């Protein structure tokens, strides 16, 4: 079953005094499998936040269908199984973390359990600040509290908009660990983050949204696969001319060369030629694209 199923989703924001509106989403088709860690990436103004709000019922689609956890996001019983962390979560400064979790638990329809809340705060690294007023929290602490609130009630779907925003690198590792734990438990994760490195580490599926449309979507390995380019390192003293004749291009550092080989036979033939010329192979690595490269190349193609 799919956790999120969106078909032909359109959203146009109309102003009261203007005839034309702004098309934030122009027909998005997307399916997020249950139990997957899905990342949504794209440039500013792509419509990512609008998409997230549409799947949560916060904005009403102009056209298209949205199905979340097998039902409509308008249904409170569906939303009861979703944990959401908005991009700029407002936290009441005069409350304590436990009081905030207590209130959110009640609004989610759960019986507040102080011990469970404290365990949750410990999990997100806020146990030491549980009794302090939220007004005294740093940005990173606020994000962690927001994450804790999203995790209340063990949701089936976690929708996180910039979850590690403001969190230090060590903290990001902790958050990543929590998210990975949740995915291993079977929770579907839907993530929107500008930190592509984070998205790469957490997600197994990615969609690229730009100008209100999905440009590319699929498993991360498939998207990041660069094709037939290899990085090869030879020991110092290799004959550059012979290597060039074998098809190796010199790299940026000493001993580093690149070679294009569509299949293993071509690669091995090139390596044999290099070794025959007296070069000693030290390192062989397939050169894949990172997510940033995927994004930029996709955007470039789209343009």
């Amino acid at each position, binding site marked *: 079953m799919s956790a999120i199923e969106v078909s032909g989703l359109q959203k146009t*924001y109309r102003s009261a005094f203007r005839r034309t509106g702004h098309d934030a989403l122009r027909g998005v088709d997307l399916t997020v499998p249950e139990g997957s860690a899905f990342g949504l990436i794209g440039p500013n103004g792509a419509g990512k936040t609008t998409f997230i*709000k549409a799947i*949560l*019922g*916060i*904005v*009403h689609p102009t056209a298209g269908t949205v199905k979340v956890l097998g039902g409509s996001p308008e249904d*409170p*019983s569906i*939303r*009861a199984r*979703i944990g*959401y962390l*908005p*991009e*700029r*979560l*407002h936290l*009441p*400064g*005069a*409350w304590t973390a436990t*009081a905030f979790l207590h*209130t*959110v638990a*009640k*609004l*989610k*329809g759960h019986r507040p359990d102080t011990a469970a809340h404290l365990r949750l705060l410990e999990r997100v690294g806020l146990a030491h600040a549980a009794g302090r007023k939220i007004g005294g929290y740093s940005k990173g602490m606020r994000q962690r509290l927001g994450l804790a*609130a999203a995790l209340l009630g063990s949701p089936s779907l976690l*929708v996180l908009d910039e979850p590690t925003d403001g969190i230090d690198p060590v903290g990001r590792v902790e958050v990543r660990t929590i998210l990975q734990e949740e995915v291993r438990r079977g929770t579907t994760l839907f993530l929107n983050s500008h930190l592509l490195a984070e998205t790469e580490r957490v997600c197994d599926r990615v969609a690229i949204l730009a100008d209100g449309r999905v440009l590319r979507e699929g498993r991360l390995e498939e998207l990041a696969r660069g094709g037939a380019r290899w990085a090869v390192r030879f020991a110092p003293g290799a004959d550059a001319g012979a290597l060039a004749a074998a098809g190796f291009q010199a790299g940026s550092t000493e001993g580093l060369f690149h070679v294009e080989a569509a299949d293993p036979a071509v690669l091995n033939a090139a390596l044999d030629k290099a070794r025959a010329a007296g070069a000693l192979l030290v390192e062989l690595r397939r050169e894949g694209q990172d997510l940033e490269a995927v994004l930029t190349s996709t955007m470039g193609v789209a343009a």
Partner: protein
Amino acid sequence: MRPVLGIAGYVLREAASRKFILAFLIGITLVLFVLSLSLKLEVLDGALAATRLFGEEMYLGIRAVDVALRPLFMASAYVVFYGGILFGIVACSDFAPSLLSPGRIEHLLALPLQRWHILAGTFLGVMTLALCGSLYGSVGLWLIFGVKTGYWPIGPLVAALLACGSFAAVYAVMLTTATLVRSAALCAATGFLTFVAGIIAGYRSSIAPVFEEGLSRKLFLAVTAVIPRLSALATASADLAASQPLGVKSLELLLAGVVVFGLGVLAVGLWRFEGKDY
């Protein structure tokens, strides 16, 4: 119903953490305290023999205490009524816009609540706050008068309840405004406009003759027919405080009409809120 109460509790918790509300409570307590110390009423066998305010004797004459204090009871009823509503407009104008702010409303809308729960809960929370505040002030006045004179006037309490009913109508307008434009200043402005319109509507029978007979008078009467009769309720509370006959045909129907107006405006806000994107 539970989600509505949950949101109401959320609003009350928010109010408790706001220093403004605390300042208000301290302010009322101080006023009551100063009044209780400075107002000296010499009562002899149920007759008000002498009245001293801040040490100065007030020339009220010696007469039965409930009769002598009628102007005071009437004045306190008006102060509780109008002062309460005005304060409520200023103090509560920020609740709805704050709740509907980005980062907060998205979080609330993603929770398993119906949209109308959020607005209704906000309304209920603010009304609970208004009721508690006005009862606090009016019970304080009641205690002061009762202890000093031996006469326990019901006026301030009745005025407080009528003021709450009236404030329900005013706040409904403010809340609906917030669903249209998220601005505390605009909410306060529409609340104040409703307050003024309510005063005019209460005197519509007396004001109507000012208009030329014909379309303009009919239009005035038609428009004011819908607006809550705040001044009529204020006068009724003063009449009750002074044990005088009421000038309205049925106070219960009038109050019910004002509250129903508030619910009608709230329904407009709910209609707007249901369709709004955040």
